[in-house]
């Protein structure tokens, strides 16, 4: 009797809890691409989908949360997302500088040097958005062993025009808002990778993740990890953990060839596949116009991409790509004739003094069409812009009309950073130069970092191309042209620019430093000066003036001398 009631109770409990259990799906993916300069760009992606799950509504934060049961989804990350009611979140930790001119677009847009965190969260009255943002960054700092706690109010901005949500946003009682922060001096290292691997269902013991060998990854020319949480209304909550790295296979090859294999790049090969993964795919971009050999035989090869299904290779998988006709790799001496990216952006901070300088940005539009872009600059408060000195020039001719609108949040000393977000029109095939004077502020001595003379890293600026509407004269398709000899420029002309955002490199700003050993001395010396002035003045004002007869003594002295 007791047994049966217990069994009934358990079954009821199971039914109840399973109501909160959503089916989960894990898939892993690795893509490898040989770059023009002999390097190999790799991207690992581990995607977990909690089907039909919905992000927590911020209004329910006051109530106890439903119990969450995950099988594949990383629990520690799930708890963070639930307790701060985060709808969408992107965290990237990168080391090195992505070279757009030589490598083209990265597979994943977030290649800002250092740490970048942005999140879309529903506004709510129960727990304020900024409180949850603070909680989120501190929790992530703990989870990934990174100094994300420093992404405080002094770094946080809200460039909502540029960082649009990548998934869907559920309809809550209050609108969603963006919080974005960058920490350019944060570097990614092994201590960040270990917690990253712990979030994966197979850890690094099997499947594609077994290739994530810290010794090799952190030796790469460029490497970075990313965590993306999005919500897709058709799929559910999607968590994608990814790792990008650019390896220099020529440098590590004894014969200076660009041949690579898993063993060569990662020091490992895939021994067994991750059984938790529904899909485990490796994609290799095959070279064009050159003789190559790839082994083992790919599961499929389509459109210049070789695909491997890891589960089909039971005896271990070590993909290798060789250029048999090549002796040693010859580095390309000239830049590519056709730029690899639609836009090129450089940003420099000039100026000889420690109190002011000039910020020069030049943006090149490589497209044969006019393009509209957003330029996003988030500056810490200690570099302040003089907007009245802003000049836009094309070929040294002033073109202030190219600035179509400007959104600008002023910095607050010791507090909020600047957000400078102009919308620019870029004429076809030309370079727009934007210059502006900046003031470098003077910090309190406690605000300086321990190695103050090194200077401050300034976060990268972001160029966000916007979808352009076609000019009215070309809305009709080109079918009316009599011959098929459409000029090349015209056929290229109406293509949409690649909408991936482009990051500039970091800047280092040299701020004037006080003498860090001086606090007591300054307090003593300034106070002495003030006390002296005060004392002498009050001495004059309070003590009575009297006329003293000093003559008799003089007379007596004179008498003695006589």
């Amino acid at each position, binding site marked *: 009797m007791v047994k049966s009631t217990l069994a009934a109770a358990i079954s009821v409990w199971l039914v109840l809890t399973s109501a909160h259990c959503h089916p989960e799906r894990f898939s892993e993916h690795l893509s490898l691409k040989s770059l023009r300069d002999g390097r190999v760009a790799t991207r690992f992606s581990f995607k977990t989908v909690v089907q039909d799950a919905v992000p927590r509504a911020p209004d329910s934060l006051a109530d106890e949360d439903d119990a969450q049961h995950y099988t594949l989804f990383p629990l520690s990350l799930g708890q963070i997302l639930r307790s701060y009611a985060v709808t969408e979140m992107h965290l990237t930790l990168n080391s090195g500088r992505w070279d757009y001119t030589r490598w083209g677009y990265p597979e994943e847009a977030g290649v800002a040097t250092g740490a970048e965190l942005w999140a879309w969260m529903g506004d709510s009255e129960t727990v304020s958005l900024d409180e949850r943002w603070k909680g989120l960054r501190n929790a992530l700092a703990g989870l990934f062993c990174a100094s994300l706690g420093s992404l405080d109010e002094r770094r946080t901005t809200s460039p909502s025009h540029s960082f649009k949500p990548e998934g869907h946003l559920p309809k809550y009682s209050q609108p969603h808002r963006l919080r974005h922060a960058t920490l350019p001096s944060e570097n990614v290292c092994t201590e960040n990778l270990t917690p990253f691997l712990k979030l994966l269902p197979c850890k690094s013991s099997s499947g594609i993740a077994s290739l994530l060998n810290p010794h090799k990854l952190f030796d790469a020319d460029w490497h970075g990890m990313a965590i993306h949480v999005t919500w897709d209304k058709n799929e559910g909550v999607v968590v994608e953990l990814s790792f990008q790295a650019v390896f220099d296979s020529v440098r590590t090859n004894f014969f200076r060839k660009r041949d690579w294999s898993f063993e060569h790049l990662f020091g490992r090969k895939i021994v067994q596949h991750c059984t938790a993964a529904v899909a485990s795919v490796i994609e290799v971009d095959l070279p064009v116009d050159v003789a190559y050999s790839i082994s083992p035989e790919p599961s499929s090869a389509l459109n210049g991409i070789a695909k491997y299904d890891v589960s089909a290779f039971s005896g271990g998988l070590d993909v290798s790509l060789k250029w048999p006709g090549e002796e040693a790799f010859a580095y390309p001496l000239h830049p590519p004739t056709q730029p690899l990216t639609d836009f090129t952006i450089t940003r420099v901070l000039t100026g*000889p*003094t*420690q*109190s*002011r300088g000039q910020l020069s940005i030049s943006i090149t539009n490589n497209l044969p069409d006019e393009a509209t872009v957003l330029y996003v600059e988030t500056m810490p*408060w200690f570099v*302040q812009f*003089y*907007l*009245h000195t802003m000049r836009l020039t094309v070929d040294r001719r002033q073109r202030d009309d190219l600035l179509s609108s*400007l959104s*600008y*949040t*002023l*910095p*607050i*000393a*010791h*507090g909020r950073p600047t957000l400078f977000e102009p919308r620019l029109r870029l004429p076809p095939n030309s370079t727009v130069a934007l210059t502006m*004077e900046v*003031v470098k*502020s*003077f*910090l*309190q*001595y*406690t605000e300086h970092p321990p190695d103050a003379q090194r200077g401050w890293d300034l976060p990268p600026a972001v160029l966000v191309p916007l979808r352009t509407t076609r000019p009215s004269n070309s809305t009709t398709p080109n079918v009316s042209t009599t011959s098929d000899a459409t000029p090349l420029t015209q056929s290229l002309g109406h293509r949409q620019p690649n909408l991936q955002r482009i990051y500039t490199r970091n800047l280092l700003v040299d701020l*004037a*430093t*006080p*003498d860090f050993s*001086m*606090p007591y001395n*300054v*307090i003593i*010396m*300034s106070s002495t*000066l*003030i006390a*002296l*002035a*005060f004392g*002498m*003045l*009050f*001495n*004059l*004002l*309070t*003590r*009575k*003036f*009297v*006329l*003293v*007869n*000093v*003559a008799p003594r*003089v*007379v007596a002295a004179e008498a003695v001398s006589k």
Partner: protein
Amino acid sequence: MDYHYVLPVVVAGRLLISYSLHSDALLHNHQLSSPPTSYSRLQEGVYLFKNAINPYSGGLFHHSPLLLSLFSTVIPLSSAISPALWTLCDTLGAHCMVSIWRARSKLESSRRDGLIAALYLLNPYILLSSLALSTSTFENALYLLSLSFASQGSSSQALLCLAILTHLSLPSALLAAPIVMLLISGPESYLASPKAFTGDARKATRLCAEYLVYALSLTMISTVISDGWTWVPKTWGASLLLPDLTPNPGLWWYFFTEMFDHFRPFFLVVFSAHLVIYVAPLCIKFQHDPLYVTFLLQGILATFKPYPTLADPGLFLSTIALFPETYPYLRHPIVTVLLHVHASLLLPLFHHLWLGQGSGNANFFYASTLVFGMANGAALIDCAWAGLRIAFGEKVPGHEVVQK
């Protein structure tokens, strides 16, 4: 020197210099313009205001909304107009100096007029600040205008000018007490023959009330202009809380750069209260000559206020010209002059070594501000001494004036 001859020549010379010497280095010089008086920041504020961005939402702009509305509507800030406007303000200041002198000495015109005007217009501290288009030029002109009206007995105009001055620079509010006294008792010199202040309390109350009404209306006007109260913490608040630690020739900036965080509020209160302490004792001790009180108090402000520029001590030094009767009683004028020469050589040199050249550090410039503080303090103490000593007449052989 004939005033009618000297003034046009000097002003013409000033105009020539201000149009030919247009240098960025002067414009951004930390000694000539501090954050609340900087021309570039004013330009930035006007730019933002014109582009419908509230300049008070950020930490860069500390100017009064009155200046903001003036330069965004009536007078445009441009390299063609500004030098002339600044020179004009200095000319007005010089003329006011002369009229104060005339009121004090009860002379229609004297041979000293030209000298006084030239001393003001050619004082290097004032001249350079004016070339740097620092708005402290306006503050100086308003101060002299207020004193000039007060010396002539035009109470409303004097108090209005003072209210505008207070609005531009909050510490100037301390000058209200001696200026009200000046309006009651007149500008004549009674330093040599002190008498008790015989003021009508009712008149004083009326004058104070009038001043407050002006100050309040300016506040309301500013609030309407900038659409809210955001300007208050950014303008007046800045002179109490010192958010911007840009170097200047004063004593506050390095003190609060090096201050321990938990002592910061305490010392901010001490430094602000320190300025207030002097008002009552000076007004009591020099009750016979309120113009001299104003002069000394301005010297104290120039030395100890939060964001001074060289124009503030410059004004103090130039106004010494109004009190020639005290000269014989100065104890150490040579030392004061040498200290000033010393400081004015060290200040630009060490500033450049620290921020431009990079071969010096912050202590270099701090040390020169200390020397400058000593020079101003020495001038101040000596003037206070001379103002009191004069009452005991010329030196009698065999007798010495000492303090009990």
